[in-house]
């Protein structure tokens, strides 16, 4: 009787999924990259510097992986979380104390912080190796937008636990929006510098109202940030990431002149 792995690899089911032998020789190592949907993100062969960790720091890949971690844990968290004033905070308590896999929220939060840091480090590496230089100018611009989306993802997610930390951080962060030039009704700077006893309810400016969906951080804001956090921004980021990766291929690898 042949060994088990040969039986499996020889079966019709296996062959229907993987249409070529195991990637143990040169030919099949090329074929695997061309026939696998996930692997075809990569080219078949790349410059040696492109896999050197001390050169690439792997930070772009790590950022993408953290995005996937956030997606998976985020979907699981959505099972347990309702973005309403009545339930948001209680669901947080339940997530910590009742739900199994009690570290779900921890993984989501720490991976989010880590993602902000790894995006910066990725950008830092790209700058220090001059990888934004022609022909990669456009991809750098996309990267800047992705940086912005990462910060917005983190910012909108910050509100969802609906505790003191959340609403006051969002309040402070979004207060800047009411000072938007040309949109009027921004309070004088001193009112913001003196954070003690700040009056929350203002004649809202359009920018802040548009962000919060209300004149102050409330239930409308929670709903708005929830939708932005779970649907709108991830979709935008996914689209831009697809373009970002595709352009890496089209522009001839991660760095260096063509």
């Amino acid at each position: 009787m042949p060994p088990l792995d040969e039986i499996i690899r020889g079966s019709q089911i296996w062959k229907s999924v993987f249409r070529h032998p195991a990637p143990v020789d040169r030919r099949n190592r090329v074929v695997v990259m061309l026939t696998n949907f996930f692997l075809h993100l990569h080219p078949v062969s790349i410059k040696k510097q492109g896999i050197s960790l001390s050169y690439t720091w792997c930070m772009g890949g790590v950022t993408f992986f953290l995005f996937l971690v956030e997606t998976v844990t985020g979907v699981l968290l959505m099972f347990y979380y309702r973005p309403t004033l009545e339930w948001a905070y209680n669901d947080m308590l339940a997530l910590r104390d009742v739900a199994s896999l009690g570290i779900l929220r921890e993984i989501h939060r720490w991976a989010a912080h880590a993602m902000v840091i790894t995006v910066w480090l990725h950008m830092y590496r790209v700058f220090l190796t001059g990888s934004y230089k022609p022909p990669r100018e456009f991809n750098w611009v996309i990267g800047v937008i992705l940086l912005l989306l990462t910060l917005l993802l983190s910012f909108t997610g910050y509100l969802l636990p609906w505790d003191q930390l959340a609403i006051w951080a969002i309040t402070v962060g979004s207060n800047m929006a009411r000072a938007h030039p040309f949109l009027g009704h921004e309070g004088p700077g001193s009112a913001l510098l003196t954070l003690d006893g700040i009056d929350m309810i203002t004649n809202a400016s359009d920018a802040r109202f548009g962000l919060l969906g209300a004149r102050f951080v409330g239930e409308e804001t929670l709903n708005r940030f929830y939708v932005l956090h779970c649907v709108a921004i991830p979709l935008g980021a996914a689209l831009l990431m697809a373009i970002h990766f595709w352009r890496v291929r089209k522009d001839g690898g991660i760095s260096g002149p063509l």
Partner: protein
Amino acid sequence: MHGHVSYEDFIMQVAGFLTAYYLFVAIMNAFAAYYLWQSGRAKALFRLPGSGLAVTTVHVWLLVAGVFTILSAYATNGGAAALSLSPLIRDGADWIMGPVVYSVGSLVLMGGLYLGRSFFVKPTVAWTGLNLSLLLMGLSMTDMDFASIVMKPDNVPIVAMIYLLGFFTWLSAHRAVENDARIARGEVPLEKLDDEKVLVWPDLVYTELICMIALTAVLFIWAIMLQAPLEEPASTVKTPNPSKAPWYFLGLQEMLVYYDPWMAGVVLPGVVVGGLMAIPFIDFNKRGNGYYTINERKFAYCTFQFGFLVLWVTLIVMGTFLRGPNWNFFGFYETWDAHKVEALNNVDLSQYFWVDLLQMGRPKAADDASMAVKIGYILVRESPGIMALAFYFGGGPPAMVIYSKFFREMFMRMGFVRYMVLSNLILLMALLPIKMLARWVVQMKYFISIPEYFLNF
């Protein structure tokens, strides 16, 4: 670890952490010694007199590992309280530390590291610096005020970020210095030696797989060891003091000290994003593409590092660790006292000009004057600041071309539009330190102060 915990209880809590912490540093050094020994990269320092035995870096790091092991054992056996900086040093550090010392100190430190980079990138020097910073960190953790800020769950990533940034800055500078030396000798950069192509399977996909597994492990350990923060339920009537934005925006929040929100919160972030996007289109230097180098792109390197490390990161660190209630400045070892009073008597430029210099009142329209007249009076009142800024932004770019050979050559190579984008971005970036200096030296509040229309600058 809140204020009402007694110091004895606090030390009990922190002793366990310190034990693990010092042990970790010891293991780290032992690994370094092992690596140097195995790779044959150990450097002989001197020979013991008599026996002639060569003392190498291996022995040094083994010794350091031994010292940290002893510290670890000491911390777990009730000696944690003694493992601290003397109150004299801590009070002295708090006394010296202020926004001016911190900001200027950061700039001087970065500048010094940059100028002495060929020394500081040496692995032995960098490793010594890392050990010293870790030791200082450990000794500081027995201070309640220091620990309470650093151990705040959301602040832990920032501590990690500081070390990560330090490491990667060192790594890139290390390679850049080596590349620059190679280029000076007429050789190609290290990266060019790796120009041949390799198959992605297995070389890259396995690296990625290992990275993913390692990262998953790190996330699990992190998530188990450190609980995500969950404070009291949200309340719109109880304002915490200080109220802080999420940590990555604290550099912007710190800028609120010097700028009004419309600048710090809207215009300057927009300029940062736009400026970042503009980088590939204003950096015409073709060299330094695909390898680490500093000498071949000094201007780009210094400008970016100034913006990123000096402005963005150090302001975040200041906003996170050093800004307490009422956004007052507190030293690393200072208790966050909500009643600390800091005199704020900042003066507008128009006040300096009309009242102090010309010894007259500031121009003011009659109360029943028409809108246009009032605006006219405001413009006259603020004319010193308006002219100063017009001179700065209007005269800056041409002056740079006229008086600096460097910028003149740049202008010739870049053309008008790209040069204007670059020079204005640099002038805008430089405005923040200028504004800080004006605040510190002459208590300048606003160059242009038009509170009637919320237009303070």
